[in-house]
């Protein structure tokens, strides 16, 4: 896939998502997931790691893209931003699994969005186990808003929390999930 053709499209989806358009956000994550999978598989291939590790990284990167999307500046190109996150997560993975990055060649920003890989593999992450590690309040907020699809005001009424409190809990919860994935990756390899 040609980068120049995906950049404007992905960027438009990203900007719509930033403004609260859920279907654009979903479309963006679906597109990125295939591209990230191809990128991580390619990178991990050099270190003899398999598709499950790649899928863990895809999910980690997707959560990071979602929870840190406020760091994207809409006046800037989108591809280098995604590449920055993907590369950071990859380097972090190498560091925590104590793989040497000396042999890692410097890639181009285009590499992330250059290819698609739609082979779906399940990651080693277990959402229920990850959720069990969250505080009850945060877990409930994630369950209602993110899994059951209740609106924030409905969830707030059910939990007996304020709406802004629910929003903060959801955001914190997603970040905590990402952190657990990072930690789990380290345990997994040790």
């Amino acid at each position, binding site marked *: 896939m040609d980068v120049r053709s995906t950049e404007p499209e992905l960027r438009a989806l990203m900007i719509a*998502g*930033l*403004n*609260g*358009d*859920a*279907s654009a*956000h*979903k479309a963006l*994550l*679906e597109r990125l*997931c295939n591209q990230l999978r191809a990128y991580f598989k390619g990178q991990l291939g050099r270190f003899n790691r398999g598709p499950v590790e790649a*899928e863990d990284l*895809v*999910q980690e990167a*997707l*959560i*990071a893209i*979602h929870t*840190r*999307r*406020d*760091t*994207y*500046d809409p006046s*800037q*190109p989108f*591809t*280098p*931003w*995604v*590449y*920055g*996150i993907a*590369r*950071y997560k990859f380097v*972090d993975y190498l560091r925590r699994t104590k793989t040497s990055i000396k042999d890692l060649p410097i890639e181009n*920003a285009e590499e992330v969005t250059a290819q698609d890989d739609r082979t*779906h593999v*399940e*990651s080693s*992450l*277990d*959402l229920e186990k990850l959720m069990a590690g969250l505080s009850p309040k945060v877990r409930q907020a994630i369950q209602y*808003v*993110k*899994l059951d*699809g*209740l*609106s*924030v005001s409905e969830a707030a009424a059910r939990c007996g929390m304020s709406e802004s409190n629910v*929003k903060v809990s*959801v955001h914190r919860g*997603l970040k905590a999930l*990402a*952190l657990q994935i990072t930690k789990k990756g380290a345990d997994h390899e040790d």
Partner: protein
Amino acid sequence: MKTDQLIDMLSTNVEPVKHGQLGKALAWALVIGGAASFCVMLATVGLRTEAAGGIHFGFLTLKLLFMLSVIGTGTALLMKLIRPGQEVRKLFRFLFLPFLAAGFVGIVALALQPSSAWDRMILGTEWVTCLFCIPLFAVVPFALLIWAIRKGAPTSLKRTGAIAGLVAGALGATAYAFHCPDDSLPFMAIWYGAMVILCAWIGARLGPWLLRW
């Protein structure tokens, strides 16, 4: 877990993102950090006394100019470093300018005086105090800057930590300038410069540990 499941989860109830939150956090860290540094200065060594000649506005202005230019460039860099995929190389070059300028005027000032005066010009009266105070005054601003940066997504942790240390050190030195009894350009270039660079080095060591996400 299937990735589709995760994507469904992430794209359920998507909230619109408020712009400018990162910049705001960074601005607060600078303002509160600077104020805290100033208070620590007042509580420990205090403003320059009348016995030490009162505040000499010319030299104070030069010291502030030196430090504020470091803070300005450093903050501009941090704004870029907390966003993935931004070009920072050009701005990095600007960072050396204040240090080069201070070094240059320091050397010129030394050259204009006989070498017998150099000891006094370089060591001043309180170089040891300066050595302790600048890193001490930098602690609170550093903690606040780290808090603000953690809201972003720095991808080069050592570098981001170094710039956070540099800006915190420069805030500490700004506070120290209101106490500093030494009116000498070489003193400013050497001790202020060295202490701010030391803070940057400490920041670089702490960055990967404090900023990981």
